[in-house]
């Protein structure tokens, strides 16, 4: 099984470099929406919660999973919605409004 370990470390290191490269170019105007977006994306931990909640496991284990699933899902929903809500407000021209 230890053979499996290294590919995951590789993925982590490469993904971090991609992350640093991509995030550095994000417009400073958008740092608040960036934070809510990355928050929603990292709530992909929901997949771990689904496996624990839905598996054939003892009740207490599944309950821990269900709370985690709820918390991640709340992050996904609110994270994407509020990011979009904020981004809709960024406009170049003010004349088209009221």
């Amino acid at each position: 099984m230890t053979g499996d370990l290294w590919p995951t470390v590789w993925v982590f290191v490469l993904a971090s470099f991609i992350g640093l490269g991509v995030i550095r170019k994000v417009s400073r105007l958008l740092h608040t929406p960036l934070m809510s977006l990355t928050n929603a994306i990292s709530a992909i931990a929901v997949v771990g919660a689904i496996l624990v909640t839905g598996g054939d496991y003892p009740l207490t284990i599944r309950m821990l999973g269900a709370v985690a699933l709820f918390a991640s899902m709340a992050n996904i929903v609110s994270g994407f919605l509020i990011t979009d809500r904020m981004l809709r407000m960024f406009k170049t021209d003010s004349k088209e409004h009221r």
Partner: protein
Amino acid sequence: MFHALSQIAYIVASALFILALHWMNTPATARKGVYAGVAGTTIAVLVTWAEPSVIHHWWIVGAIALGFVVGIPLSQVPLTAVPQRTALSHAFGGIAAGLVGTAEYYLRLGDGPEWLTPFRMIALIAEILLGYLTFTGSLMAAGKLQEVKWVPQRPVTYPGQNFVNGLLFASAIFLAGIIAANPTASWAPYVFPIIIVLALAFGVLLIIPIGGADMPTVIAILNSYAGLSAVAMGFVLDSKLLITAGALDGSSGLILAIIMCKAMNRSFTNVLFGAFGQVQQAQASGEQKQYKSETPEGAAQVLEQSSFVVIIPGYGMAVAQAQHKVRELYDQLKKRGITVKFAIHPVAGRMPGHMNVLLAEADIPYTDLVEMDDINHDMPQADVALVVGANDVVNPAARTDKSSPIYGMPIIEADKARTIFAIKRSKNPGFAGIDNELYFSDRTWMLFGDAKVVIGELVKELSGGSGMH
């Protein structure tokens, strides 16, 4: 077959996440980024749900439904409350990682050391440490930002604080080490909860000495921790999707934290362990310098005769919800052909980018929001610098006074403008508790009062009263 399909789906989801962040590089494409993120998440959730090992579907439906019930109202908070919402979502991310880690450990205890390899145990412990400390730390941060009664706003410090924190952290690491070496020992299931409690306590203790002015950095750091706890979960579950998404979140938090630290000329360790608030008792009320105050009528006249106005917003604008009134002022000035720019300091407000979002909400075009480094060249040409609830970010002491706690911090050079108007709620010093020399300059006039009311009066003078004087 299913394995191959699910791997392809996860690869697609990872690619969508990277694209989502890539599209955030300009406001023009940013919304596309949200759609990519939603698509990636939906694919990953559905594919995981379809795993043959997942059999309790109603549990999942229930938890997801509850997530929507809580998530939708959380996305509708006023934009001034976005910092606390963000902190709260870090807490949610932390607790999710912590709970999944806890469940995994007790679940795999029966599988023995073949499954609980040292590598998995280290990852698992990292997951719960980061998860639980992010949980309580972010709750504390959210409480401070929301100004909840029982959470102290001012930094709480006591002698030996860093020693106590260090000791606590060292004990958690020590226990983590022995449990990682003996994951299935008979005492291990009882030591595990102690690590959880230590992590929870450490999260609280880490945040209580930190003041409001440092919140942007702290939120960014907690963001990074939440991401790293997802990475650790990915190591435990051997999920490359989780590792990728967590690494993106972790590096984003890290970059934001570095930007915030640079904007305050401070180091990570100084923010986390420096306890900003305690430094200034000495010169709080030394000499009796005099403020000059001005009436809205007078200020409106000066504004009217200027050709270039720079507005410098700060946390005070958010507190007073003054962004819509600022927009009316912007309109009034624009109508007279006056150039109006907003000077945005990276740490203005309580989280990275806070001011931009508030001003965008008020329909101010983002092309008029200018970063500190770009606006400072133009400050000497500005006829008026209007400071709206900003304080430390325009304090010239950062340039001149070596004894000041903010010495060396880059500032918006409002003091170089021909005339400075500063709107301030009260005569008390700002959040960091430091006197601001700018207010005593001979070119500065103070407009005391709530930012929303004062700007409302300026707008009234400019719109109706212009003929009366």
